């Protein structure tokens, strides 16, 4: 029989008040899910005791979807229907994929090469977003099963999903879309190195400036963070969202190909199966060389020819020297952006399976002139950090001491005359951030303006990534240079951008939440969501009603609690007005009309706007020495 747990007086809430939230590390090679149980961040295992879920999805002939080890094992046999490393293609179009010849998938040539790319599988066309959603669904199911969600312990409130810090807006948006498709409520997109810093920093109770060097399967990030009493402030971040352990495998793969070519002059291009087989062998050799001096690579190709080659550790180091050096450039850039010297760095934390390679460790040690820290499992630390953040976000941490101040990795700007970039938000700006800039017309009588939003560090639009293009129409005809168009960029705490433009004289406005030009449209997502919920209209309605009721319940309880704590901040008339709205919403949430309930939620939200602002100011004042903000005058 399990022992009954008794908590310290005043410390803990009753068990049923613990809110379920998870952290997911959606990796290129492996994915993990973790949660905080009794104050401890823990990685959840599947029924076979595996913590790591290989990020491999196989679409089966019977229409089912297999994810993880089982799919990975069939990679070489069924390469076109078994997709690995889908993260590499997130938010990317076909023209972004440079080494198609070495990737064993059937990419679909769409008429418009700037559209989101798709893969042909036996389950039909699949976007990387859908493939990632299948991985997320698997992890969600794992979490619900092991946490007993819906089985008495309440519903899963949501997930923190990690993304490479150097992911651009398109890649972040794609990740959020994947979570939506998987039916997950995204509490926050969290940068992987920041997640690692949280797990490391809280575990070791350290203070000072730390570098997180995160070389994953397909992405490289370096972040520099200042840790002070639970505050994790990112000073600078840099990286390469197309560089990772996969590339090391690829170097070995090319080396094997060279070897085969040397041995025969009748070499024909490899099929998809053989490509996948050799890539798998290359990965195994790489892992073997972490602890051994040489690796023997033996396999038989589909044409019957036998491959038997030996790769020495020294050869491997030489083959991959350029890749290792490639990680040091972003590292130096981040150091310069943070305006730090090497002796100001207290420690370098290694994250990501690829940092196990001795040549990587050595390069970091040589550059930073200190031994990197490896005392946390580099595969798990990101998921653990995400779980800690998820736990804090849903309010399970009673002490409000964890605070993450993250930054935007890439500069954001827009196109001006001559294809030049006008930078609006510089890289490494702390989130959330908003900036406005005024622009004007360049022709007499110009009535419309096309606004192209770009992300990147280069001066020319052509060298940056175009995120969106929208038009502001109806500008009153004036002489060139007379109109004042204010463009406002806003980046939220997830690192996602929205842009609005407004003509100052007339107030004509255009607003876009930046959906990458080649991303999924809202219609496509709705369609995918519908088909994943099944076609039954009734199901959809029931689900919408349930969601509306949950929302109504959540806001009623939030406002009620707020009133009981801070009701004294507003007049009794104001308080009464809010209470009336609460009662109305309570009544309507018993009806069966989701639309009406949602309207009621909006109304209550609206009625509490002033109250929310007053509360916010009051809590800030209290935090700052209990003084009233209005007392201090210039």
């Amino acid at each position, binding site marked *: 029989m399990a022992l009954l747990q008794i908590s310290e007086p005043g410390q803990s809430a009753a068990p049923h008040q613990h809110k379920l939230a998870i952290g997911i590390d959606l990796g290129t090679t492996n994915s993990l899910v973790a949660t905080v149980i009794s104050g401890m961040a823990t990685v959840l295992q599947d029924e076979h005791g595996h913590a790591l879920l290989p990020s491999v999805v196989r679409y089966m002939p019977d229409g089912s979807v297999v994810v993880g080890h089982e799919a990975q094992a069939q990679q070489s046999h069924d390469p076109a229907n078994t997709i690995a490393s889908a993260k590499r293609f997130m938010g990317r179009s076909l023209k972004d994929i440079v080494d198609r010849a070495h990737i064993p998938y059937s990419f679909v040539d769409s008429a418009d090469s700037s559209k989101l790319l798709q893969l042909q599988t036996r389950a039909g066309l699949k976007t990387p977003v859908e493939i990632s959603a299948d991985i997320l669904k698997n992890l969600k199911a794992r979490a619900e099963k092991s946490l007993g969600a819906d089985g008495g312990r309440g519903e899963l*409130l*949501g997930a923190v999903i990690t993304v490479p810090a150097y992911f651009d807006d398109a890649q972040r948006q794609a990740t959020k879309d994947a979570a939506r498709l998987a039916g997950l409520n995204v*509490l*926050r997109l969290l940068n992987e190195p920041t997640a690692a810093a949280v797990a490391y920093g809280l575990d070791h109770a350290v203070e000072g400036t730390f570098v997180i060097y995160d070389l994953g399967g397909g992405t490289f990030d370096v972040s520099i963070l200042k840790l*002070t009493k639970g*505050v994790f402030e990112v000073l600078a971040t840099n990286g390469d969202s197309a560089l990772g352990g996969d590339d090391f495998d690829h170097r070995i793969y090319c080396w094997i190909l060279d070897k085969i070519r040397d041995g025969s002059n009748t070499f024909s291009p490899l099929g998809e199966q053989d490509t996948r087989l050799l890539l798998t062998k290359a990965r195994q050799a790489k892992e073997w060389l972490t602890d051994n001096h040489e690796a023997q690579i033996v396999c038989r190709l589909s044409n019957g020819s036998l491959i038997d080659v030996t790769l020495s550790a020294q050869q491997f180091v030489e083959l991959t020297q350029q890749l290792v050096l490639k990680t040091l*450039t972003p590292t*130096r*850039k981040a150091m*310069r*952006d943070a305006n730090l010297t090497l002796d100001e760095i207290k420690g370098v934390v290694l994250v990501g399976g690829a940092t196990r390679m001795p040549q990587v460790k050595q390069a970091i040690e040589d550059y930073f002139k200190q031994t990197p820290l490896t005392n946390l499992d580099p595969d798990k630390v990101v998921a653990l950090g995400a779980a800690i*953040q998820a736990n*804090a*976000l*849903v*309010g399970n941490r009673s002490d*409000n001491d964890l*605070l*993450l*101040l993250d930054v935007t990795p890439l500069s954001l700007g827009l196109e001006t005359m001559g294809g030049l970039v006008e930078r609006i938000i510089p890289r490494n*700006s*702390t*989130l*959330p*951030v*908003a900036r406005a800039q005024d622009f004007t017309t360049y022709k007499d009588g110009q009535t419309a303006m096309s606004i192209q939003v770009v992300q990147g*560090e280069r001066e020319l639009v052509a060298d940056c990534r175009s995120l969106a293009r929208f038009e502001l129409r109806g500008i009153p005809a004036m002489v060139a240079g007379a109109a004042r168009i204010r463009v406002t960029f*806003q980046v*939220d*705490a997830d690192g996602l951008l929205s842009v609005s433009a407004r003509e100052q004289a007339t107030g004509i406005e255009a607003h876009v939440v930046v959906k990458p030009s080649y991303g999924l449209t809202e219609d496509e997502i709705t369609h995918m969501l519908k088909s994943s919920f099944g076609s039954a209209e009734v199901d959809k309605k029931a689900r919408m009603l349930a969601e509306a009721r949950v929302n109504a319940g*959540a*806001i009623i309880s*939030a*406002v009620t609690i707020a009133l009981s704590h801070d009701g004294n901040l507003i007049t009794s008339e104001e308080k009464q007005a809010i209470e009336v709205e609460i009662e109305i919403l309570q009544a309507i949430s018993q009806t069966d009309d989701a639309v009406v309930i949602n309207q009621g939620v909006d109304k*209550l*939200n*609206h009625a*509490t*706007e002033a*109250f*929310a*602002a007053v*509360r*916010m*100011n009051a*809590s*800030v004042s*209290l*935090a*700052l*020495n209990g*003084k009233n*903000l*209005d007392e*201090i*005058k*210039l």
Partner: protein
Amino acid sequence: MSLNYYQLFYLQPLFNIALKTLETNYRQIQSEAHPDRFVTATATEKLASMQLATLANEAYQTLKNPASRAKYLLELHGINAINESNTSMPTDFLMQQMQWRETLEDASMAHDISTLEALLSEMQAEAKSLQADLSLWFDERKDYANACETTRKLIFIDKVCADIQQAIDLLD
């Protein structure tokens, strides 16, 4: 809330500020206002949080950086330091500027990172000495005309520094 940035952080409107206090108070505000504290809150609370957290970030960055702090402080005194009609600079400073720009261009062409780095530290030392001047003009003498000229110099130097950084980034 129509507070100025100094009021937001409980600081006296001076050039010389206690950076430690700025940092501590900034963190306090973010501890209360950051969107992470309002993930499960109502839409209106989320909006209020987003606005205050954004303001705190903007205010903190403005006051942390000496050049933007000086420019902001001038604005509070009704002076626009980079007003287009306000561009006169002492000739010796302009000459010096051109020299720095030339060194920057030559070193970039020659892919000479170490010269660029040396130039950067020279500029940073120059910026330090201008900051000492600013403290005198702003805080001791309340001489805003001189403060304005020195601020413009500091802004120029910041721009050159940014360009050097970018040149190094491109070469690296």
